[in-house]
C-alpha cells in the first residue's frame, strides 16, 4: 500500500481491497498500486486511480467495480483517473508480487534486469511453475499490455512475465 493511503479509514480500505484487476483476479487494486488517493467529502468517497498502461481496458471495469463495491455497502463512490505521476511496477506491493507468482505470473524484475531479460541477454526470469531460471523469451508482448510471454525450458510451461515499467 502506498504511503498516502495509510491514514485512510480501515473500512474503506477493506472495500477497496475486495476489488481486483479483472485480468489478474488474485491481485487487489491496492496491491497493484493503482489507487492513488481516497477523500471523503459530504459522504461521497472520491477515489483516484491511475492506469497501468494508457490503453488498459481494465481501467473502465475497475472503476465500475469500485463503485459497485461501495454501493453494496450503502456508500457512494466517485472514481477519477489521474495520469501523473505515472504508474510504475515498483508500486506493486510485496504481497502483490507473491500473489502474482502464486497465480503463475512472474513478477517484474528491476529495470536493468528487465532490459537484459527482454533482450534475451541473460536468464533472469524465474519460472513460476518449477522455479527454474532456464527460461526464454517467446514474445516481448503478451496476453495483455503489461505482460511479456516466456517459456520455461525445463518444465516446458509457457508463462507470463509482468514487464517492468519505470
Amino acid at each position, binding site marked *: 500500500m502506498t504511503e498516502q493511503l495509510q491514514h485512510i479509514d480501515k473500512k474503506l480500505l477493506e472495500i477497496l481491497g475486495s476489488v481486483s484487476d479483472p485480468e489478474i483476479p488474485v491481485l487487489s487494486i491496492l496491491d497493484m498500486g493503482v489507487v492513488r488517493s481516497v477523500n471523503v467529502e459530504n459522504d461521497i468517497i472520491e477515489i483516484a486511480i491511475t492506469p497501468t498502461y*494508457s490503453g488498459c481496458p481494465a481501467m473502465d471495469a475497475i472503476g465500475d467495480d469500485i463503485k459497485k463495491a461501495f454501493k453494496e455497502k450503502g456508500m457512494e463512490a466517485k472514481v477519477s483517473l489521474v495520469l*501523473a*505521476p*505515472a504508474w510504475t511496477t515498483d508500486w506493486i506491493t510485496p504481497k502483490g508480487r507473491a500473489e502474482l507468482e502464486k497465480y503463475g505470473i512472474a513478477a517484474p524484475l528491476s529495470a536493468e534486469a528487465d532490459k537484459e531479460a527482454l533482450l534475451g541477454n541473460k536468464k533472469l526470469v524465474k519460472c513460476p511453475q518449477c522455479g527454474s531460471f532456464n527460461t526464454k523469451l517467446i*514474445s*516481448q508482448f503478451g496476453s495483455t499490455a503489461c505482460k511479456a*510471454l516466456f517459456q520455461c525450458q525445463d518444465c516446458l510451461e509457457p508463462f507470463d512475465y509482468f514487464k517492468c515499467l519505470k
Partner: protein
Amino acid sequence: MNNNLVQYIYGIADNALILGQRLGELCGHGPSLETDIAMTNMSLDLLGQTRSYYQYAAQLLGENATEDTIAFLRREREYKNVLLVEQPNTDFAYSIARQFLFDIFHLSLLEGLKNSEDETLAAIAEKGIKEVSYHTRFSSDWIRRLGDGTTESHDRIQAAIDDLWVYTDELFHQTDADKVMVTENIGVDTTKLKEAYYKKVSAVLEESTLNTPVMEYFQKGGKQGIHSEHMGYLLADMQYMQRAYPNMNW
C-alpha cells in the same frame, strides 16, 4: 477556448489515433501470433494515449464535444496526422518500417512534451514515454532482424524504408499553431529534434546492414489536413459505426 492548443493536441493525438487504427487492422492478420499480439498491443497503447489527448481537447472545446466526436465525426481535412502514419500495411516490412520511423520521432517528441508547461500534456507524455520506449525497442529490433536476416527480408525492409523515407521530413514541420505553442512553452520545437532523429535512425539502419536513403524532395500535407489517397479508406472503415449508428455505445 484556446484554439491553438486544440489544434496542437490534434497534431499529436491524430498521429496516435491513425497509427493505432493501422496497427489494429493487423489484429488476426499478423505474420505470426507473437507479432500479431505485439502490433495490437502497441495499437492499444496508442489508442489509450489518443483517448487522454482527446478527453483533454473535448474539455477545452466544451459544448457537446467528447473524445468520440473528435475521433469519429471529423472530416478528412480536419485530421492533422502526418502522412507517414496513414500509409497502408503493404507487407510486414512496411508495417515495421513505418513503426520504426515513427517511434524514433515519437519518443523524442514525448521526451520534450514531458517538460511542457501544460500539466495535462506533460502527464500524458510522461505516461506515454514508458510505452513508446517499448515500441521503439520492438520496431528497432525487427529492423535489425529483417535487415540482417535473409536476402529476401533484407531487400524487402530496404524497399519499405526507401519508400517511406519521403514522409519523414514532415514529422518536423511546424504549423502556425505549433509555433504559437512553442513560444508559450507548451509545445515542443520539432525542428530541433530533426538532426538527432536522422542520426539515430541511420545508426540502427547501419547496424542492420541497410542503407540510409538520400533524398532531396519530401512529401508533406498531412499536418495541413491534405492527406494521401489512403486516408479516405481508413476513415471510412474507422468511422463507419458512428456514422451509420450515431451515438452508439458498446
